[in-house]
Each structure stands twice: as structure tokens, then as C-alpha cells.
């Protein structure tokens, strides 16, 4: 397992969320990518201005093996979505913590990101829950 970036927070569903102000960028973790395998399709079912709710799906991701939902790590309004993923789903395999960001959310409650796990806690979670 690669190093977990310390500049962001994590969910038990293997999404990451990064941001210190009201705008939070969201993607999925290397663990999620490894579980999915070769990713062939990313469908982000939201557009700028849409409201999303914590724990509710904002899209789906398809790999050769299976389909998974993408869950919002916090509630808020969509600021932008990564349109590149529509045509280049392989970005998720290549750079899940960078170029394959999925959405930017204006958090309804700026403090909500603090409720998520930090890198150390998520690392522990992977050790205990995921295997």
C-alpha cells in the first residue's frame, strides 16, 4: 500500500476529501482503486450547483470486475466536476490523489471535514477493517 497523503481526510468508504476553506476536493483512495482494478468508466451524476448529502451517491465507477457507488464524504453544493474523467477513466488508476479528483464541494458546514479520519486513522482503519 502506498503512502497516504497527510494533507487530506478519509472516509470508511475509501473517499478522500481535501481542503482547508469551504471548498473541498473529493476523490477515491488508492485502496479503493486497488480493489476495483482496471477502471473503465467514471460516471459523475452531478453538475455545478447541485446539492449533495453526506453518505449519498454522487456517481458510479465501473471497473472490468465490478461497479461501485461514489459516496459524498460531506454535504454541500457542487462547485465543479472533473470532466476529464468522462473520457479518461484511466486517470483514476494512474493518479487517484491528483489528476483523478472527482468533485469540488462547497461544504454546507466548513467543520464537517474535521469529522473524517486523518491519514493515520485511515491507515489504522485499513489494517483492521479492510483485510
Amino acid at each position, binding site marked *: 500500500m502506498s503512502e497516504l497523503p497527510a494533507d487530506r481526510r478519509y472516509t470508511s468508504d475509501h473517499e478522500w476529501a481535501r481542503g482547508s476553506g469551504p471548498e473541498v476536493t473529493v476523490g477515491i483512495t488508492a485502496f479503493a482503486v486497488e480493489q476495483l482494478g*482496471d477502471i473503465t*468508466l467514471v460516471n459523475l451524476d452531478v453538475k455545478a450547483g447541485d446539492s449533495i448529502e453526506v453518505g449519498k451517491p454522487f456517481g*458510479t465507477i*465501473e471497473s*472490468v470486475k465490478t*461497479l461501485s*457507488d461514489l459516496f459524498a464524504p460531506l454535504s454541500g453544493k457542487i462547485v465543479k466536476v472533473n470532466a476529464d474523467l468522462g473520457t479518461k477513466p484511466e486517470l483514476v488508476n494512474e493518479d487517484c490523489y491528483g489528476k483523478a479528483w472527482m468533485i469540488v464541494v462547497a461544504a454546507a458546514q466548513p467543520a464537517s471535514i474535521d469529522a473524517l479520519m486523518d491519514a493515520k486513522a485511515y491507515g489504522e482503519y485499513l489494517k483492521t477493517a479492510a483485510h
Partner: protein
Amino acid sequence: MRPPLDSPSPRVYPAAAMNDAPLRRTSLYAEHVALGGRIVAFAGWELPIQYTGIVDEHTAVRTAAGMFDVSHMGELRLRGEYSEHVVDYLVTNDARKLVDGQAMYTCVCNERGTILDDVIVYRRTEDDWLIVCNSSNREKISAHFAHAAKDHCDFEDQSDETALLAVQGPRAMDVLARLGDDGAKLGELKPFHFRDAVLGGVASTAARTGYTGEDGVEIFCAWDDAPALWRALLEAGRPLGLKPAGLGARDTLRLEARLSLYGNDIDETTNPIEAGLGWVVKVEKGDFIGRAALMEIKARPLPRKLVGLEVTGRGVARHGYPLRDVDGTEVGVCTSGSPAPTVGKNIGLGYLPSAMTEVGTRLLVDCRGKNIEAVVAKTPFYKRAK
């Protein structure tokens, strides 16, 4: 991301929910782990779904060679004077046409003409037969054959003592040739023929069969000999591009070649005729279980057929997704589906009303509430160059 509870890949996790029996391991389990295989529960077994990645392994099989552990499959042996009669009575294809050292694909049906299993029947001699059945059906098919054999011939379920490896791909026979004279001679085997061979020091039986749409062999050996054979093949094959391949690639490869998967495309609610397996139903051969029902089915127009699907919209058809006509009315069901690495499309199989089965017919796949456009496609999706 969280795999949905109604996992769309029952082929990957089918048995986990079926019973609480402990998962079994093949004699190659340690090899899989050492090679970095990701182990999943499959039909009651712990087997690797992938090592390096499904697409990578799939591509290795299409362009060089791949090796699969399929030791979970069931092996049933019928021996004795009447064994040929017993076997022929239980299968839809004509076992009496086989010669020594020849094998055939066939369905095993019930009296209703629906499919109990799809198997390969091997004739060693007139009075020595081997049946290889699906692991998920082993108990059912073992009991079915044991019952029919009672008072007629010897029956032995050899599944626990028999390992099975598949070496598949355009370089497969070259890999075997690197294991010495016996391996080289396997290149002379015609499709669906088999012979005994000593490979890497292991007494084996190799058959020119497979489940990938490529050339290759499936090799039987004693359960505990499999690691030695596996390592010998890996060592001989690595310079030729041979890679270990898991259940994931096995599924994408077989789907591109339109080979049926029991439990997905065929089961006890489907018959061989509608499943496109009419070519293994020989009603003229004489009596067999399911014959009367299958004659009835053949005499009438088929209400539905299993056809190939190509998803043209943004989506992947998966097992169990409803199929709709262009007006949105549910008309059938997808039985298998995935991205197809060699074909480069999202493909699938599904049952549709016969009126909708012409290639090019437009339809919709209900991908969890979203209707995605698809068309009926020609199968097999992939056919190797001869």
C-alpha cells in the same frame, strides 16, 4: 466507494452467501499468494481473482499465454462395461461418437430439458470415462451420475484428488514444448483430444480444450503434484510471456468467446436450445434424460433466445440487469456483462424475445435505474485467427 450490497458480480462471490461451509483451498493456494494473487471466495473456494490485473492477464492470454488454476472443478470417473451407456444416457451430446482419447462439450439436462450443468466428457476407453463438471454443481452432478451408475458401472468422484491447470494462449503449446518430449508431442493433439504426458516430472493428462477462445490445454494431475507442475510451467513459460491469470480474466476471456457460464447464462431455468447450445443436443442419438422435453422445445418457435449485447451508451451491462425495448418495457435480462479488453467494447449476453434477437436490434439496458442504449451483437465477440 463501497461495493454495492447487491453485488453485480455474482460470478465472483456466488457461494459466499449460499452456505456457511468453510472455504476450501486448492493445492496451489500458497503459489497464488506468493505471486501476489488477490484471493476471493468463489463457489466455495478461495481462488485468485487477479495477480497483476484483469486486463493485463487477459491480454497475456490473447497475445502470449496465461495459466489458470481450475482445480476447483469436479472430476467424476465412470468405469465398467456399461459406463458408456450410463454417460450417454445422462448427456445431450452423442458420447457414442467419441473415440479413445477424445472429449466433447455437452449439457446435462433434467427431464424438463433444462440444464443441470454443462460438462466435458472424456473417453479414455470404451469402458473408462471422465466427466469434468462445474465446481458449483459438483455435489448435484456427482449424485446424479452416482445414481445413474448404481448397479450398472463403477462410479468415483475424484474431485478431491485431482488438480486441473489450464495453459491458454497462442504460445501455450510452445510453453508445453519447453517441458520436454511429452510436452512437445502435445502440439500434435487435435482440439478436444487428450493424452497422458509426463510434464515437469509430473504424471499428467493433457487435453486440447479451454475456456478462453484461445488454443491451449487443460492438464489434470494428482492434487499434491500440482505445485510442481505449476512451477515448471511458470518457469518454462515466463520467457514466452506466460503469466498466471485469475478468475477475473477467465471471465472476460470466456465472455468475449461467448462461452456460457453456468449460474449466469445457463441454469435449471434455461434450456440448451434457447441458450444457443442446440449443437450439443442430439435428439436423434437415442434416449437420454431430457430428450422428450427437448424434442418438444425444438418443435415449437422459441419464445426467447440468449444473444450477444453491445452497450453503445455510457454503461456496463452486468448480470441481472433488466433489458428493455426502446419504449422502456422490460423484455428480458442480462446474464453476463463486462468491459471486453480485446474487443474494446462493453459487451454482454442476455435473454430476449425471439422477435428482438436479430443483430443490430436496438434495446436498453437498465443499469440500476438508468436506461443505457445497447444493440444485439454478433457472437462470438472475439474469434482467434486460425
